[in-house]
């Protein structure tokens, strides 16, 4: 497999067969994949683990994609979320981007496009982690006066 990447991914979608196939394909490309069938389950997973990217369906029973995005970003503002939907309206895509989604893709999605977005998400996550560490070091230096 030539198109590989490292990273921890969470796929959130109530279409079980779709998730099974997409997980297998992403794992074959070197990614570590977890799945959730609902927004509630996804929020619990994000509380418990770090992810480099979330692939999130828009239309789900209970908490929909927008509500789930909001809940996850409140917990972790730097979380990289890619919304995936079978039925995206312009209004929904604008709302999603305002809430901090990284991108908004329509199903069926080309895997090379998704992999490119996942790599971008991983870079953003790594940059955010590095910046946090730098900020912490600066704070320590400022307070300790070394």
């Amino acid at each position, binding site marked *: *497999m030539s198109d590989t990447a490292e990273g921890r991914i969470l796929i959130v979608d109530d*279409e079980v067969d*779709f998730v099974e*196939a*997409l997980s297998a*394909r992403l794992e074959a490309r070197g990614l570590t994949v977890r799945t959730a069938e609902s927004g509630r389950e996804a929020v619990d997973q994000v509380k418990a683990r770090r992810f480099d990217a979330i692939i999130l369906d828009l239309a789900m*029973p209970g908490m929909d994609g927008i509500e789930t995005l909001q809940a996850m970003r409140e917990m972790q503002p730097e979380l990289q979320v890619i919304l995936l939907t079978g039925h995206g309206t312009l209004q929904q895509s604008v709302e999603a981007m305002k809430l901090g989604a990284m991108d908004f893709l329509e199903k*069926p999605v080309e895997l090379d496009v998704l992999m490119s977005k996942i790599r971008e998400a991983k870079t953003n996550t790594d940059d955010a982690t590095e910046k946090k560490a730098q900020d912490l070091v600066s704070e320590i230096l400022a307070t300790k006066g070394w």
Partner: protein
Amino acid sequence: MSERPAALAKKLAFFGAITASLSHELKNVLATINEFSGLLDDLCQAAAGGKAPSPERLVNISGKISKQVKRGETLIQRLNRFAHSVDEPRASVELKELLERICIICDRFAKLGQATLERRFPEGEREITSDPFTLQQVVYLGVRAALATAGQQRRITVALELDAPRPTIAIESADPIGPEDPENTEHALLRELATELGAELQWTGSATPARIALALPG
């Protein structure tokens, strides 16, 4: 561009909502088939590199693709039947069959609202002459009214009652539906369409179960 007459606009809105819902489900079917097709490609590549997949895995994948194709066929059939329900403004309608068709479409809305949509249909058939499209729209609006106020129980039932003097379609909810509100555009539309059908609308939103019933002309 001139404005559409209000009545036509409301019917178009219903037509749009249902076709959008069915086409969304179809997209999910295609997306799933796309992923399994891609997975087969991946497995072929792995096989070319000496890692052949097990026959069981291939059978499993082909089974999943078949299942989605059947699901897609069913959805297209539903879309087609719904689209054709506007062909005749008055037609012979078998009530149980029509109710089952609109209930299947409304199942998705109920699922998204985390509610269950049950049916209570009697034995036997009953045909009436009516407007099949408007009948479906009235049931849809009744289900929406129940979903909008669904509370703890989240259990909605679409019933057909043939033992009353007039055949009656009832949408019942285990939670209160609340009173009919003339300011609520969907409540008002439901009453308007009931009148159009020549049906008597009975709204007992605080009863147990809460109920919106349409007594149809025989």
